[in-house]
């Protein structure tokens, strides 16, 4: 990799909030621009170049055109980094996957539905090999900077496989699952966000995706003790993780 790698940002189905998360890094944005050469970034610039080494890809893949384009990106980029829940796990977009695609088109576009093509939403990794995933809705800015610094040193960052609870306890938060009856998904969700939701009055909704070895049965049992039915628990798991939930259901 050259001293100042060329970097491009691409956006598929999503709200572009992960590109905004990069722009919101004001305190270090100039340092980032000093370290990398951004050649494409729709949210922030009009110029575009096809010459890039690292592609940061946000959004899920949900049209045949998306598939072609992400394959094109994969061919050109040395490294493909999926950023945000949509790109890493399919995100909220995958909620539509439980319905027929014709039904989805009809709901969104009415009688004009036949003008559009749509496919079940999927993470980038379901279409092309992905070198690194930085999950979250939106992606965590600090984690993005941490990953960029690792890549600049020529190291592939590795996200710790620890639950959100670790960051939550380290902050001294009161456990919202144990003490406040909230249906927190922290114990099964991969950390890296600094437990931002439980730290600000909310609870974890699993936007960063689940651990490779989640204690899912035990978590499900606890949520049932909190009064949820099995279907209600599954609905909660499906908010950000329909794609993996459906894969899981298909495998069982």
């Amino acid at each position, binding site marked *: 990799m050259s001293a100042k790698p060329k970097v491009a940002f691409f956006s598929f189905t999503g709200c572009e909030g992960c590109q905004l998360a990069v722009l919101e890094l004001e305190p270090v944005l100039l340092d980032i621009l000093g370290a990398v050469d951004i050649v494409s970034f729709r949210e922030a610039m009009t110029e575009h170049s096809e010459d890039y080494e690292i592609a940061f890809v946000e959004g899920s893949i949900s049209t045949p055109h998306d598939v072609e384009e992400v394959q094109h990106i994969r061919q050109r980029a040395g490294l493909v980094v999926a950023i945000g829940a949509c790109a890493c796990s399919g995100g909220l977009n995958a909620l539509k996957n439980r319905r027929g695609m014709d039904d989805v088109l009809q709901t969104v576009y009415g009688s004009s539905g036949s003008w559009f093509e749509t496919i079940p939403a999927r993470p980038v990794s379901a279409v092309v090999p992905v070198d690194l995933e930085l999950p979250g809705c939106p992606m965590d800015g600090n984690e993005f900077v941490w990953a960029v*610094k690792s890549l600049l040193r020529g190291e592939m960052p590795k996200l710790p496989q620890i639950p959100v609870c670790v960051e939550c*306890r380290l902050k001294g938060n009161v456990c919202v699952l144990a*003490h406040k009856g909230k249906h927190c998904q922290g114990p099964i969700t991969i950390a890296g966000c600094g437990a931002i939701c439980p730290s600000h009055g909310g609870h974890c909704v699993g936007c960063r995706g689940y651990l490779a070895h989640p204690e899912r049965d*035990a978590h499900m049992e606890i949520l049932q003790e909190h009064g949820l039915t099995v279907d209600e628990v599954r609905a909660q798991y499906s908010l950000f993780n329909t794609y993996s939930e459906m894969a899981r259901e298909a495998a069982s």
Partner: protein
Amino acid sequence: MTVGCVPKGRLTDFVCHICRGRQLIGVRQKEPGFVEFAELDSPDELVLDYVSTPLPPKAFIYPPIETLVRMRLGTAPQVETVLDETPRAIVGVHPCDLHALAQLDVILGDHYGDPHYFARRQSALLVGVDCLPDEHCFCGQVGTARAEGKCDVFLTDVGLAYLVECWSDEGREAVEGFGGLEEVTPAVLEAARARMERKLAGIEPRLSAPVEMLPMLLDGHQKASEWEDVAAKCVSCGACNLVCPTCNCFDVYDEVALSLTEAERKRRWDGCMLREFTLVAGGEVFREGKPDRLRHRMQRKYNYLYVRYGSPFCTGCGRCARSCPAGIHPVSAVNQVTASES
């Protein structure tokens, strides 16, 4: 050494006096129903009548995340050790947490002294306070109900006043010169004694065997399968480790600046209940299942470290039980496993 009584109305003055020149760490309201140890803006915030905090006061001696060394990178790298010797007063520490710090002194001082821990430890004035238990506390079961001199100054609530005891030269110096101390009467001493009696009587979780028997009993329950039932609902969130006042395992990592010319080596609390804790080079996980991890944690608290250092490495503070989403209580777990046939 008992030195006098502080009327409750003069507590703020007393705290101001003994903490002069020091950063004031104390217990304050966090949110409705919960208190926490924090740096206080004013001694008026101090809450001394409380049961427990999410994190133990350990967090101000051994922070959740701390910088160990700063590095300047390049052909001639420079490394600077970071030691925090800020004078602090930690006020409102319960006997269980005082015992926990004494145990950390032992384990972090063994073989070599952890300089980062001891820099803060030796700069801190510890002001303890007595307490009454909730349904999770079991200090009386593990020998930590009384502070036994493990702090500089100790306060006991005797109704309208706090009984003040100084247990170190630093404590005596801190209290010296405070004009508002009242005489200790036999009635005050009786109130202090009655309060301890009330505390011990209020402890609900009971070990089925005396704590001294636990190392021997637990030796017979080393198979992970024997811990399956108690671990069934464990979500492996690591909360029990991370809120524990005696847990001291950590992970080390480097944070490099975007310039790539400077870096900090940091450490962060880690915990043996987390699967990744037991992941080693080559991808091996040496305690794969949660029953095995819970077995290890309990063995360490009530057997391995007990045998090695002479006291159980659990102070009965109850934090693990309070913060466990699955409601696992160590006393129930140990009772259940030791009652089963090995």
